[in-house]
């Protein structure tokens, strides 16, 4: 189970950036004197077996939140607990429990798919036997055996994303974080990813799924958390969120909830 309480992250501008910002009209309320509050107050939780949809416009603070959850960034304030363990205090525990996949996390192009996955297994301290067994299981599940020996730079986008999923789950994490995993994928590849996420529903795993595709949220997520301008605007069941507007559509609920209708420049 994941619990995120009053999470905040502030970035200090460097001198050059601060000078550039000085005297200019503030376009984002998160901008402070020489600092930017990327995440101001985010709270949500995700139970085992649940898929939580993380929603928000571009620049809302979703990726920063997920990076804090994955220990890549250190929170300025607040708490992240994974099964009761504080991520900031026990980063190694968190890293062993989390599998992270985003559109930006890549593979080593000169290694084969199998080598890539095995490498990350070794990084997580798995034995060769454990790696072989898990690779067999995951590759079968994701239908990857046909391209297991191919170098990553020879893969199609869909194959690459499946290989990335295998890389993210090789250590059998208890928390899976997907940050816009279907961006740029064709319908068939996107379906593979969504089916994979779906397969974890009701398992021991907590899945956090960040996306801009609301139909995917409707299909997969039990609960949603909407982040806007670095703050949680809604956290609750997906149906309840959709029902917050007269139309009952997730799309309308989303538009009604975000303050900034224009993309942040």
């Amino acid at each position: 189970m994941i619990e995120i309480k009053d999470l905040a992250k502030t970035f200090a501008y460097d001198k050059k950036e601060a000078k550039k910002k000085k005297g200019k009209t503030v376009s984002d309320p998160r901008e402070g004197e020489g600092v930017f509050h990327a995440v101001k107050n985010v709270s949500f939780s995700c139970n085992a077996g649940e898929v939580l949809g993380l929603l928000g416009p571009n620049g809302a603070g979703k990726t920063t939140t997920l990076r804090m959850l994955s220990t890549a960034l250190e929170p300025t304030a607040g708490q992240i607990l994974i099964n009761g363990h504080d991520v900031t205090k026990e980063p190694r525990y968190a890293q062993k429990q989390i599998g992270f996949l985003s559109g930006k996390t890549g593979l080593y192009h000169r290694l084969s798919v199998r080598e890539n996955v095995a490498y990350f297994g070794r990084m997580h301290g798995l034995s060769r036997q454990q790696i072989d067994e898990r690779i067999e299981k995951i590759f079968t599940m994701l239908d990857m055996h046909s391209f297991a020996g191919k170098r990553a730079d020879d893969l199609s986008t869909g194959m690459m994303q499946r290989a990335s999923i295998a890389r993210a789950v090789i250590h059998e994490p208890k928390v899976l974080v997907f940050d816009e995993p279907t961006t740029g994928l064709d319908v068939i590849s996107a379906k593979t990813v969504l089916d994979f996420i779906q397969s974890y529903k009701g398992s021991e795993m907590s899945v956090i799924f960040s996306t801009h595709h609301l139909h995917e949220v409707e299909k997969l997520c039990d609960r949603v958390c909407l982040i806007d301008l670095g703050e949680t605007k809604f956290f609750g069941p997906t149906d309840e969120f959709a029902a917050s507007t007269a139309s009952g559509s997730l799309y309308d609920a989303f538009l009604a909830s975000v303050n900034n209708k224009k993309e942040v420049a």
Partner: protein
Amino acid sequence: MWLVYKKELLEILRDKKTLIFSILLPTLIFPVLFFAIGKFTASKTEEAENKEIKVAFVNSITLPGFEDLFTREKGFIKVELESDDYKAAILDKKVDYIFHVPAGVSLPAESRKQEVLKVYSKESTRLDNILGKRVDDVVDAFNNTQRMELGRNFDLTTDNVKAFNKPILIEENNFASQREKTGEFAGPLLAYLLIALAVSGAMYPALELGVGEKERGTLETLLLTPMSKGQIVMAKFGVIFTASFFTVVVTLLSYLFWVWIFSFFAMDSSVAADPDSLTGKQSGGGLDFLSNISSLDLLLVAVLLVPLTSIFASIMLSASIYAKNMKEAQAYMSPIFMIGFMPVIVAFVPGMELNVKTAMIPVTNVALAMKDLIKGTVDYGLITILLISTAVLAGGLLYWTTVFFKKEKVLFRS
């Protein structure tokens, strides 16, 4: 085409970093650096020109006025020899030049023939050449006075003519070994080559492992594993260091091999051309030169590259990690290469030598030490100081790279 040209140019002009690194550096910073090096070279040359030269004279009583010319000239100091061992006196630096007037030599103006003087010295450096030139100037001045005397006499024989043209002929006896003389040229060449290879050998892997990983998204993936950032950066540093060091060592071995091959064939053909020269003394060129360099000296050349490649590996890895993209990283690499190479140029300014002070100047110290190792004139105590100072710097830079790598602002710079 014009439209594309204009758009591309506009994009480049709006890229401030490209402007700084491709225009500001070559037009402003590099000329300033070259000017500084030029000034430093000039000051060192002036220093050499004003350096006190210790001269000794043996049996010069038969050449009245010869000694006086030296003692009157600024910068020369006459010393008395304590023994007849000229070589020891010169190598111990008790005297720089010994003028030995053989028995029977008198003033050419009186003998009406060319007289031959012997001069003993040790000339193996560019500084020595400057000093030697000053000595030659004084001898020439003496010759001029003699020529004036001879001019009064018109009863000229062949000897008289020779005497008129060059009343005093100097027979030079240079105590510098062939290794020192060859090493004076080969040492800097080797240092230039190896240091340039160390820098360029670190560049490609640094780009790959820093900004390359950032661009491919594998760096973020790596950060999510239970491996600490310190371990990750150390591993990356290790690869860059290995690649750089390997490039240098392989090149060094390859050059040694080819020098051996060419020398072998050169010796073979010289033997064929002159069968009587089978004395075992004929020159094997580079082979002779190489055979004089001990394994310890060659090993030390390689050892010197360890802290040096570490320095460049740390700097380049930091620059590569800091860069947002490959283009920005490449813009950083050229100045690092150029600025990193300046101390090598400084090392070979006449008068620069490895001492306690220069042993602490990064890169310059390694270049100077390499030259001395090749020449066979190295002070192993100074090598120890050099290794300690360079290792401290390399360690400091590596620590800084590790700290730098842990900064969120650097890793997620956008």
